[in-house]
């Protein structure tokens, strides 16, 4: 069974530039999550989708971050414009259903903002 795919694996940009990350969840998983993990900290949930609807985006900085999950499968997370403090690993995860179901994580995208 294929796991959660993410791209790119690494990205380096300058502040005020834009960047987008892509995630392909495990086939059949209805719930998709985007997390931000700053070095030395645990993952922080940014947004949670159930199919193509947003369940929770309370910690998403909506002035610069946006995410969509068209057709309830793939998802993209965008940052525009990026700030230095956005340097982190962005993890995508998926699960069959509820938040307390086992979440399967992708390898993450390491973003460096200079």
């Amino acid at each position, binding site marked *: 069974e294929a796991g*959660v795919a993410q791209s790119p694996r690494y990205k380096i940009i300058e502040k005020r530039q834009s960047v987008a990350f892509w995630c392909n969840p495990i086939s059949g998983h209805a*719930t998709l999550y985007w*997390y931000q993990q700053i070095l030395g*900290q*645990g*993952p*922080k*949930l940014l947004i*949670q989708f*159930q199919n193509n609807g947003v*369940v*929770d985006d309370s910690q998403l900085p909506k002035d610069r971050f946006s995410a969509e999950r068209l057709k309830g499968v793939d998802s993209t997370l965008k940052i525009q414009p990026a700030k230095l403090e956005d340097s982190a690993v962005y*993890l995508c*995860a998926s699960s069959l*259903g*509820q*938040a*307390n*179901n*086992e*979440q*399967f*994580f*992708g*390898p*993450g995208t390491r973003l460096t903002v200079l």
Partner: protein
Amino acid sequence: LAKTTQPISMDSYEGQEVNITCSHNNIATNDYITWYQQFPSQGPRFIIQGYKTKVTNEVASLFIPADRKSSTLSLPRVSLSDTAVYYCLVGTGYNQGGKLIFGQGTELSVKP
């Protein structure tokens, strides 16, 4: 939302049993307790989940006392490859108004 408290770090030696305790004093009736493992440069990986008493799978055991205000992840006979960060999470499904929140985790270092 239930907050969890874990030791920041722990050291062990190969072949020993490691017990990592997590405190969650404000756990709600519907909350489950879940543990994840994370290696450097990888996403977290599910280890075990429980609601009460004891749960065991092929890699770990989870002990939950009757009051559910804490839980202990037990790793039998650890090896060098068990060196990782371990996260304790408490939460419910989103349709019950809850979500899972990762804390800072416990960095386990296994030495030869």
